[in-house]
């Protein structure tokens, strides 16, 4: 081909026009809001030089729309493509706020839908980086139906390929359901928002004053609503964390998660584990101290850290293989199960189950949270989600009872009869129908009422109950748990158990799907 020829010149001209479209000025505007441009985000995510953009020059049709005018730009405000992240094929799209506010029109949505379908065909994870004003008003119903096709694709791919959303700007109205449907949502503090109806509508309809940040900022979604799983202070940290997170995930539900060779710096037997759980059963401790000593050094990646912190969930590795951790957190509300922690745990377990990630449960739970609020808000139906999720999961499931395992909560937290594969208990474990105080009050109601010194008698009975019933040995001797272990060998025991379970297969009865109590 003659590079000074007509066809090549036309090619160059178009390239030039594209470059102009992404001008310095546009980038500067984006930077001044503390945000990166879509290209910069893509560049940060992918290994250098591996990203291939598709549909770069797709342009919205030059036809009259219902209302106003649509800018005719190359790409229509979204970059879609594929490339390698840490050497693995990943599909991605990134909305470009500098073009019509990243609004979603028909062409924009077709591009996203196309890349979604490709990701599903290849069995590769897909990342969506969102920074969009919402549906493109000018295109009316065409943009709404665009959303629908994106949602439909997400739901189709759900549980087959990992789907992750990264909110890096506004996401309002219908647009919020796209991240809500995906497996994990990352948000950037201060510069990203999500809400179904914005502050203006809230003001008009309800006469309530609320700022963008208060209504749908990253913190709100991370702490209160549970919509966002991971939040970071800036986009670079968000993307770096996302890259790290991806190293835990398999490409699809047929493969196993990737392997990260371990440097053997984590001791398999660690007597520090003996010192964490206090002798006083009412004293709190941080279960993350236990987690960090059991998993490969520095490998614990906590998910939804700020939401329902009375349960800790996260991915980690043991001997280089990804596992999921579900742990009661005695440090917060004594690790009690409530509505939020049940749903948080349930969703995480289902994710792990879908993507062949074994689940390790660390149990120290005094029970379900009592109270009118909880009962009326449906702790029964929400607690059932956790029960359902555990019972349904066919991946290897190992439980370590660290301390309390009382009543319904013991059943729910992956007990053996619920299909748990291995159940270990530390000598500090207390497995019983209820805690000593409650049990004594019921069992010895009469005696306590008649006693001249009820406080003293109660103390005595509580001690007796603790010695006789609330310990792991009865459960061990009757086979309801597998073994009472020295805390120091916990990691070693889990490693052996995981090895034994590596080929676990459970035949699931054929059905369309179970009916989880949603």
């Amino acid at each position, binding site marked *: 081909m003659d590079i000074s020829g007509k066809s090549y010149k036309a090619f160059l001209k178009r390239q030039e026009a594209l470059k102009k479209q992404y001008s310095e000025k546009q980038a500067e505007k984006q930077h001044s809001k503390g945000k990166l441009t879509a290209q910069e985000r893509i560049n940060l995510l992918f290994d250098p030089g591996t990203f291939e953009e598709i549909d770069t020059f797709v342009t919205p049709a030059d036809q009259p729309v219902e209302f106003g005018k649509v800018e005719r730009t190359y790409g229509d405000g979204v970059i879609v493509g594929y490339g390698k992240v*840490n*050497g*693995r094929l990943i599909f991605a799209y990134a909305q470009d706020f500098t073009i019509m506010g990243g609004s979603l029109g028909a062409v924009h949505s077709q591009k996203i839908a196309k890349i979604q379908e490709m990701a599903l065909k290849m069995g590769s994870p897909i990342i969506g980086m969102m920074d969009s004003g919402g549906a493109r008003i000018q295109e009316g119903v065409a943009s709404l139906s665009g959303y629908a096709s994106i949602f439909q694709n997400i739901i189709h791919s759900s549980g087959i390929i990992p789907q992750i959303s990264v909110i890096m700007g506004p996401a309002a109205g219908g647009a919020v359901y796209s991240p809500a449907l995906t497996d994990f949502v990352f948000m950037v503090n201060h510069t990203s928002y999500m809400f179904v109806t914005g502050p203006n509508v809230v003001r008009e309809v309800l006469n309530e004053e609320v700022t963008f940040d208060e209504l749908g900022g990253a913190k709100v979604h991370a702490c209160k609503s549970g919509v966002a799983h991971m939040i970071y202070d800036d986009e670079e940290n968000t993307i*770096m964390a996302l890259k*790290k997170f991806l*190293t835990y995930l*398999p*490409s699809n*539900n*047929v*493969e*196993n*998660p*990737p*392997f*990260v*060779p371990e440097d053997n710096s984590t001791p398999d037997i660690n007597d*520090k584990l003996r*010192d964490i759980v206090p*002798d*006083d059963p009412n004293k709190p401790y941080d279960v993350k101290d236990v987690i960090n000593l059991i998993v490969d050094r*520095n490998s614990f990646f906590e998910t939804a850290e700020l939401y329902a912190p009375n349960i800790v969930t996260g991915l980690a590795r043991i001997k280089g293989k990804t596992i999921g951790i579900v742990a009661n957190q005695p440090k917060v509300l004594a690790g009690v199960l409530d509505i939020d922690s049940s749903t948080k745990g349930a969703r995480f377990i289902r994710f792990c189950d879908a993507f062949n990630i074994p689940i390790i449960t660390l149990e120290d739970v005094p029970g379900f949270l009592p109270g009118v609020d909880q009962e009326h808000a449906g702790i029964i139906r929400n607690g059932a989600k956790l029960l359902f999720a555990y019972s349904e999961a066919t991946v290897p499931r190992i439980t370590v009872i660290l301390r309390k395992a009382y009543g319904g909560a013991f059943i729910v937290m992956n007990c053996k009869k619920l299909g748990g594969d291995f159940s270990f208990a530390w000598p500090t474990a207390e497995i019983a129908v209820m805690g000593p105080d409650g049990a004594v009050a019921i069992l010895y109601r009469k005696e306590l009422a008649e006693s001249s010194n009820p406080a003293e008698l109660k103390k005595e009975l509580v001690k007796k109950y603790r010695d006789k019933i609330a310990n792991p040995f009865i459960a061990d001797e009757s086979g309801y748990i597998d073994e009472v272990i020295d805390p120091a060998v916990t990691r070693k025991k889990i490693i052996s158990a995981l090895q034994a379970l590596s*080929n676990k*297969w459970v*035949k*699931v009865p054929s059905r369309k799907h179970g009916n989880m109590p949603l």
Partner: protein
Amino acid sequence: MKIKKILIANRGEIAIRIIRTAKQMKIRTVVVRAAVEPNAMYLEYADEIYDYSEELPEIPVFLDIEKIIEIALNTGADAIHPGYGFLAENAYFANKCLENKLIFIGPDPDSIYKMGNKTIARKIALANGIPVASGSEGNISNIEEAITLADKIGYPVIIKAASGGGGRGMRIVRKAEDMEKFFIIASKEAEKAFKDPSVFIERYIENPKHIEFQILGDKFGNVIHLGERECSIQRKHQKLLEEAPSSALNSDLRQKMGATAVKIAKAVDYYSAGTVEFLLDSDNNFYFMEMNTRIQVEHPVTELVTGIDLIQQQIQIANGNTLNIKQEDINLKGWAIECRINAEDVQAGFAPDPGKIENLSMPAGPDIRVDTGITVGSSIISSYDSMIAKLIVKGKDRKDAIKNCKMALDKVWIKGTKTTLPFFRMLVRNQKFLEGTFTTAFIEKDIEKYYLNSEYEEMLAAWLATKMFVEENLEENSIQVDFENGKEMSPWLMNKRMNQF
């Protein structure tokens, strides 16, 4: 010797310290293994261990009078050494020992009681013409009385717990408006700590030095003093560094204060080792503050400058021996400094920082003495005090001692908890400390930063943070992920999984 076997009703470094002397005196020792630290270092030194680790009592065994007596009787001990803290200044306990024909290594219960109750001690001091800060005759019963009296003696005043010690239940009041608040706090704290809410008021001596005299007395009325200790480096009445002697005293003042110390001890027929605490103001006026009727944490500095083993003296006196040292035999030689290396976070205002000691290496040498009950693997637990070790350093004079101290501090290596080391590293370079002109207000008022970090330390720490960040996030090979591995699996699993979908 009547004493053949001593039960040590204490733990940690002081238990080891007592065992050391007992061994030299060929006396057997018994210690108690408590559930909260069943593998503590002091257990290795004793001749006998009474195992009490099966029980998890509500109060530490070292505070359980009945239990301690029972252990002593069961193990055939003929004497009990209470160490410091716990039951060391409990008159009831000392009396219980006597009732059970056990020798209490310490003073008579009556002396403990008199000196333990500060209002009584004050009255005794006044009756014997010993200078005390002006204040209330006895306890103050209500806020109104407190305000009236404070107006009379003038602000600032200090509220003290009658049964107090160690700084608890003490509050300084600078203006009448604050009286109500602090009065309530002080008596609440006193009630909680000493089961006695009564408090009294004294004029608060501004910026004094805390000087204390070590005394020894026998059961035959002989009392001598072993010179002073300078304990002005303290924070919220918790001593951090002690010296012997003090640069604030000349031999005249030493003699005067020493004689006063002996006088007050004699007034309560004191025997055993004890400490008389004084406040010394900038005009060299001194005021009796209180008497501690036990061996002190900081006793080693006196031992280093006098060459006298105080624990040995305590045991001999308890045994009924006559004091074998005369006042004129006491002759202070050289200078000694003790640094209390505690598991505390200097940056968080000396907040306790419990934890497990992972690495520990202490300096050694002819001028260095280390008293510790902690070793690698020991835990500093929140039920006990936060002491890791006492580093005691000697020199031919103060300058020499500080120089040796500086070198010794750089050789201390402790990992696992934060410690008071950065504070001492700062202190030995502080001008005011070097001059010796500091007062008890030194930490609160005279220093800006509680710790020392040399010029480049922060930069090195920043380098480490950056290195961690780079390794975790930016290095190409920071995480070696083997994605292919996920595709390999046994045909068993592969076939079944494929068939499912």
